[in-house]
C-alpha cells in the first residue's frame, strides 16, 4: 500500500514536470512574438521558434572546442542548471510536501543560489575568441600599454554574477520569505494550507507589496532587460553563455523557458496557495500566472534600456526596502 503511494506520487510528479516542461517551451516564443514584436510593430518569430525550433536546430549542430581551463565542468553547467530548475519544480509539487527538507523555503533558496553560482562559474571558465590579443597592434611600439593584464569579457560577467548573488537577488529572497509572516512556517505545505484556509497572501497589503518585489526579483534572476548586466549586448555580449554551442546552447534555451515557468509556479504556491496538481484544473492557474509574469516582464523589458551600476544599485536598494516593508507589514 505504502509503496503504491510512493509510486503514484513519483509518477504524478514526473507527469507534472513533463507537462510543465512542454508548456515552458512556448514561453520564450510568446514573450518575443506577442509582446516584444507587437510593441515594436514587427512580425516577430514563430511562437515555437525560440523555445522549440531553436533548441532542436542546435541539438543537431556540430559542437565547437571550448577555450576553457575546465571544459568538462563548463559544459556540465547548463545541465546542472536544468537539473536545479527541475528539482525546484519537484519541490513545489504537493507530492514533495511529504519531504520537508525538499519542500521548504530554505531548500528553494538553496536551489536558486546554485542556479546563480552556475553563472559565476560559466563566466569564470569561459575564454572566448572575442577578447583575444592582436599581437602586432597591441604590442607594437606606440601601443597604449604593451604589458597590460588581459581580461576576458566573460570575466566581467562572472564578477557581475557574483555581485548579483551578493545583493542583486536580495529582493527576490525577501519576497520569498514574506509569506512566512502569515503562515509562521518555512514549509510549503504549511504556507499552502494557511492560504487555502485564510485566502491568498497576494490579496493582503503585505502580499501585494511582496508580489511587486517578487516580480522585480524574477526579472533580475532571469537576467532580463533592464537587469541583464551579466549578458549586456553593449559590452559582455552573451556573457556566461558565450561559448555554448550545439546541444549545450539548446539546453541553455530550454532551461530559460523552464525557469520562467517554474518561477511562475513558485509565485502561485507562495502568493496564491495553489501548488501544481496535474490532476486538477489548478495547473491551469499555475500556467496562467507564469504567462502573466512573462507578459509583464516582456512589456517592462521592451521599454527599458539595460541598467548600469548607476541605475541598478538604487533600484535594488529601493526594492529591498519595499521587501522589508512587506515583511514588516506582514509581521504587524
Amino acid at each position, binding site marked *: 500500500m505504502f509503496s503504491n503511494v510512493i509510486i503514484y506520487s513519483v509518477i504524478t510528479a514526473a507527469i507534472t514536470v513533463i507537462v510543465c516542461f512542454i508548456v515552458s517551451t512556448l514561453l520564450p516564443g510568446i514573450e518575443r512574438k506577442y509582446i516584444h514584436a507587437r510593441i515594436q510593430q514587427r512580425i516577430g518569430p514563430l511562437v515555437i521558434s525560440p523555445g522549440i525550433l531553436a533548441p532542436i536546430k542546435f541539438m543537431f549542430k556540430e559542437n565547437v572546442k571550448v577555450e576553457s581551463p575546465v571544459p568538462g565542468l563548463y559544459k556540465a553547467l547548463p545541465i546542472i542548471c536544468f537539473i536545479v530548475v527541475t528539482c525546484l519544480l519537484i519541490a513545489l509539487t504537493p507530492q514533495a510536501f511529504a519531504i520537508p527538507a525538499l519542500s521548504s523555503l530554505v531548500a528553494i533558496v538553496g536551489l536558486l543560489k546554485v542556479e546563480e553560482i552556475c553563472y559565476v562559474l560559466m563566466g569564470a571558465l569561459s575564454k572566448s575568441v572575442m577578447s583575444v590579443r592582436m599581437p602586432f597592434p597591441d604590442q607594437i611600439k606606440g601601443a*597604449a600599454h604593451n604589458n597590460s593584464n588581459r581580461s576576458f569579457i566573460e570575466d566581467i560577467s562572472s564578477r557581475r554574477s557574483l555581485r548579483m548573488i551578493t545583493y542583486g537577488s536580495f529582493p527576490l529572497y525577501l519576497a520569498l520569505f514574506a509569506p512566512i509572516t502569515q503562515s509562521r512556517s518555512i514549509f510549503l505545505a504549511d504556507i499552502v494550507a494557511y492560504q487555502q484556509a485564510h485566502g491568498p497572501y497576494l490579496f493582503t497589503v503585505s502580499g501585494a507589496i511582496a508580489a511587486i518585489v517578487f516580480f522585480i526579483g524574477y526579472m533580475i534572476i532571469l537576467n532580463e532587460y533592464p537587469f541583464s548586466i551579466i549578458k549586456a549586448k*553593449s559590452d559582455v555580449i552573451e556573457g556566461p553563455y558565450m561559448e555554448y554551442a550545439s546541444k549545450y546552447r539548446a539546453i541553455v534555451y530550454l532551461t530559460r523557458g523552464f525557469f520562467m515557468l517554474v518561477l511562475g509556479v513558485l509565485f502561485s504556491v507562495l502568493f496564491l496557495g495553489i501548488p501544481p496538481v496535474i490532476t486538477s484544473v489548478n495547473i491551469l492557474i499555475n500556467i496562467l500566472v507564469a504567462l502573466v509574469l512573462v507578459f509583464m516582464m516582456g512589456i517592462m523589458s521592451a521599454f527599458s534600456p539595460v541598467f548600469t551600476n*548607476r*541605475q541598478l544599485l538604487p533600484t535594488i536598494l529601493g526594492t529591498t526596502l519595499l521587501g522589508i516593508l512587506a515583511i514588516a507589514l506582514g509581521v504587524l
Partner: protein
Amino acid sequence: MDEKVPRSKIIETEIPMGTVHPAALEPYRVRFFVEDEIVQEAEITIGVNHRGIERIMEGLPVEKANALTEKICGICSNSHIWNSCRTAEIGLGIEIPERATYIRVIMGELERLHSHFLYLAHGCEVLSHETFSMRVFYLREIVMELLAMIGGNRVQYGCSVLGGVRPRCDLDEAKLLRLKEDMDKIEEGLTGFANRFIADSIVMSRITGIGVLPQKQAIELAVTGPTLRATGVARDLRTTMFEYDNFDFNVITQPDGDVKSNLLMRALESFESIKIIRQAIANIPEGKVINTDWEMFDTDITESYIEVPRGTLYHSYALESGRVRHCVIRTPSMANIGAMQYACIGDQITDAQLCIVQCDPCFTCTDRAIEIIRR
C-alpha cells in the same frame, strides 16, 4: 573630465573588444584599460577594412574615379561622389545648373536624415532599448525609399556627375509631391519619437552626463561635425557652401558634449534638414540638370570640403590628361577618433561602446585614409 588620470598611475587591466562586436556596426577594435569596471584609457585600432581606394583611383579617368568614390561608404555614398565631382568642377571651373544644385542639396539632406536616423537607432540599440531603435528604423525606411526613388538604389544612390546630376535623378512633379508628403510623415514621426525619448526618465538617466567631451578638448582634438556642435561650437560648413546660399537653416548646437547632447543634436538637426528639403521642393528652379559644355585640361591639386552627416569631408586631387593624380580623401571619423577614445574615460565599461558610438564612427570609410608620418 579635465583631471584625467596620468597613464603611469593606472592599474591596467585590459579588456579588448572587437573587431567583431554586436555593439559596434563598424570593424574597429578597442582596448579598454579599466579599473573596477571604470574605463581609465581606451585605444582604438582600425585598419582591418583597408581597401586602398585612393590608390585604385590613381590614374583612372576622372569620371570613373568619381563613380568609385561612391563605394567608399555605404552610409554617405552620395556625399563622396558629390565632393569628388565638386573637386573636379572647382578645378575645371564647371558651372553647375541651379536645378542640379537643388537636387544635390535635397540628396545631401536626405542622406543626412538617414545617417542621423541610423545614428539614433544604433544609439538606442547600444542602450539595449530595442523598441526605440525599431521605431527610428521605421522612420529611416521612409528616407531610404525616397533615396531609392531619386537615386535608383537604397545604398549606392549617388546622383552627382561632372557638371550636375544624372538625368534619371531629375525630379518631376510626382516625385516632388511624394517628397513633400513624406517630409510631413517624417516630421510627425520624429516629433513623436523625440518627445517620447526625452520624457523617458530611465533613458535620460542612462545618457545624461555620460561620455562627456568638453568643448576645449573637442577643439584640441580637431573634432568635426555634429560631435563638435554637441559641445557647443556652432561650426557647420554648410554655412560657407555656395550650394546652401539660397537656404535658410539654423546651426544646431548642444551644450554638454555628452551622449544626451549628441543624440538630441542629431534629432534637432534632422528637423533642420526637413526644413531645407521643404525649401528646396518649394523653390526648385526649372531647367537642365547637367552642364556638358566644359573642357578637360590639366589642373593642380584641387581641394574641396563639404559638410556631410558626420562632419567635414575632404577630397583633393590633380588632373593630368583627364586622369586623377595625388588623390587624398579624409573622412570625418578620422578626426573624431581622438574624441571617441577620450569620451570613454571615466565611464563604466557598459557605457564605453555608447561613448564611442556617440561620436558616430564610420571606420569603413576611414580605413582607406592615408596617414602622414612626420619624422
